[in-house]
């Protein structure tokens, strides 16, 4: 049987960079396939190609062995591919039910919205996923985790066969992550294929079957998660040479100029550090990890809400 999704030799060139170079990727029904790599490795380009937002320069996409081309996101949706982005595309002022059935609202014979059917069908769907959310609640009253689950419910209501989750846990607490994983396992049982993009290796170990590592637009390795050590994954992810770009000369850090004590803001900190005159201090963090549009900011290096 052919795989649910098969991408072969996908190449995408942007002005100045080769975002994807002959990348292969496949997904089986009922499989959770993790996609990992550093910032700029090509993960988001691949996702956008699968979502129909970008067209590859070359390479083929097959779904159940049938060759497909996506000219627009609508084509991808029609093939049952649904991307759950970090920035959710839900209408915050509408109810859960309205969002789930947005664009496919059940109608009465008079052509008006059949509210009873709308709420009942949404409730069924949510129960099936083990969620206790009132379909009448408006989205903006939900926590980010719940919003994400509503997004998944919406995908399932449209008979999605492939769900792509882009850093889904970045804004979630451990218990919420467990709930999300529960839903992912339900989807697995329903033979939905899940592409799981993440920075967090521990999550990959708890949920994924296979893992594919990208680096600088190249496909590095695809392996069974259970047969791979964590340090092996890290080695695949990095291993790039630092070129002559950096004219670094040894500095002689002098007296302390900046002193930071117990600096805190929302979920950041408390942070303590010092900075010396003549010193270059870098603060490194992974992009995307822990940022949400609604301002909950978990990582000290991520965008906060516009003031």
């Amino acid at each position, binding site marked *: 049987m052919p795989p649910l999704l098969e991408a072969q030799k996908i190449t995408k060139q942007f002005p100045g960079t080769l975002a994807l170079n002959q990348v292969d990727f496949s997904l089986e029904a009922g499989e959770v396939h993790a996609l990992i790599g550093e910032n700029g490795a090509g993960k988001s380009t691949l996702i956008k190609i699968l979502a129909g937002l970008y067209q590859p320069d070359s390479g083929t996409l097959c779904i159940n062995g049938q060759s497909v081309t996506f000219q627009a996101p609508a084509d991808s949706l029609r093939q049952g591919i649904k991307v759950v982005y970090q920035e959710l595309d839900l209408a915050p002022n509408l109810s859960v039910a309205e969002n789930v059935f947005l664009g496919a609202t059940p109608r009465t014979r008079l052509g008006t919205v059949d509210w009873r059917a709308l709420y009942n069908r949404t409730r069924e769907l949510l129960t099936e996923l083990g969620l206790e959310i009132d379909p009448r609640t408006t989205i903006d009253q939900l926590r980010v985790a719940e919003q994400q689950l509503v997004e998944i419910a919406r995908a399932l209501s449209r008979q999605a066969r492939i769900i792509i989750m882009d850093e889904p846990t970045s804004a979630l607490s451990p218990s919420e992550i467990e709930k999300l994983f529960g839903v992912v396992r339900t989807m697995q049982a329903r033979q939905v294929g899940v592409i799981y993009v993440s920075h967090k290796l521990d999550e990959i170990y708890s949920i994924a079957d296979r893992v594919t590592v990208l680096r600088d637009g190249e496909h590095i390795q695809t392996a069974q998660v259970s047969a791979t050590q964590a340090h092996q994954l890290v080695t695949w992810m990095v291993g790039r040479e630092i070129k002559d770009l950096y004219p670094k000369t040894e500095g002689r850090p002098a007296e302390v100029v900046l002193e930071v004590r117990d600096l805190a*803001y929302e979920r950041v900190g408390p942070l303590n550090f010092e900075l010396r005159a003549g010193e*270059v201090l870098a603060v*490194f963090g992974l992009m995307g990890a822990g940022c949400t549009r609604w301002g909950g900011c978990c990582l000290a290096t991520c965008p906060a809400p516009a003031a």
Partner: protein
Amino acid sequence: MHTLGRLLFGDLPRSGSVTLGGQRLRPNNPGDAIAKGMGLLTENRKLDGLLLPLGVKENITLAALQKFATLTLINNRAEAEAAGDYVQKLAIKTPNLRQRIRYLSGGNQQKALIGRWMLQDLRVLILSEPTRGIDVGSKSEIYRLIDELAHQGMAVLVLSTEIPEVLGIADRVLVVREGQITAEYPRAEATQEKLIAAAAVAAPAQGGA
């Protein structure tokens, strides 16, 4: 903008203290941070940094305007000379100082923004993603600039999500994950593996397989 940069700079409400050269910075007051010698290069040039409708000169002198003003009157000649100096010093490619900054390339825009802070007598410069979205040539110029500034005794804080950049320019690296500092490495000990591990591997449950 990176939260940490804005926090230190006083552009977000904060608790705790930030002390620069023995003086405590007032919270919620970027002007105070600037007056005491701190500068912040924001990472989104177009959104947080550039005055797109204005000229190269106005963009460079924005934060140091009072230097060219006596009793609120701007000394245009002095301002143009200072801006012109930095256009030359940083090799900013522009036909003239009146050119709208909108028409410059990303790298040149970024150099103009760095020039904005070099015009100040800074002791601490915070650079948030200093090379995001600019060409390799400008990148290496900016790295050279950072190195120079440090040699002149400035304390430089670089907030970055680019590993090669961090390893290439830093004397010391702090790794941050979910708002907490998870590791600190001096230059000699920092490696890509260590940084990734400290930034990516979660604390709550290590593995599950």
